[in-house]
């Protein structure tokens, strides 16, 4: 699974992209954020306030409770500010 980070989430994590293989019990986006937070203090800091984080699974916006279901690409980012 590829995990992408954008904007300040990217800056906090210190990575724009990483390839990860979370264990089977990581089934939702929330689970993935928990699991990523356990990998480094930077990840933990980036995911410390979940309300500020939006997620997309395979390039579609998804709520945190959604299951990952074989997702290939999961992205985390702040609320968008384009336009």
């Amino acid at each position, binding site marked *: 699974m590829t995990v992408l980070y954008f904007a300040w989430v990217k800056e906090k994590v210190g990575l724009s992209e990483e390839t990860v293989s979370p264990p089977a019990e990581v089934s939702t986006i929330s689970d993935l954020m928990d699991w990523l937070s356990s990998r480094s203090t930077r990840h933990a800091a980036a995911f410390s306030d979940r309300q500020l984080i939006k997620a997309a699974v395979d390039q579609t916006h998804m709520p945190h409770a959604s299951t990952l279901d074989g997702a290939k690409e999961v992205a985390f980012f702040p609320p*968008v500010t384009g336009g």
Partner: protein
Amino acid sequence: MTTIRVQQHAFDPGAEINSFCARNPTSGGVATFIGQMRDFRGPTRAEGETVAAMTLEYYPGMAERQLDDLVKQARERWPLDDVLIVHRHGPLVPGDAIVLVAAATAHRSEAFAACEFLMDWLKTQAPFWKKEATSDGATWVEAQASDDARAAKWKK
């Protein structure tokens, strides 16, 4: 017809609008919106802080897909002859056009509605993030609750 372009290089809104009108000779009305980069942040330039430059980060792939999906939604609501969306990413300077949305229809009320719908949803759904460079350094622009409220009003 639909044209969606996410691009780093600057574009000329007037030239885009003229081409768009020219390719839609049977549409009586064309509504457009141009979002341009201001050189300050805050309610007014006098009260605000100077913004010298901006960087628009985006999610390649998803941005185009999301805009395409928004246009499909707009087309389900209104009979649109043509839609154009151009959105910048990368470095921008004050005065640059950030986004252009244009809708061509037979009837003007539908052109206005589609154009505003697209802007309202683009603001809350399209994966772009603005980082402004001020004298205090570069900071990420925060999303506004008012944008969510405006997008929500289109929900049926």
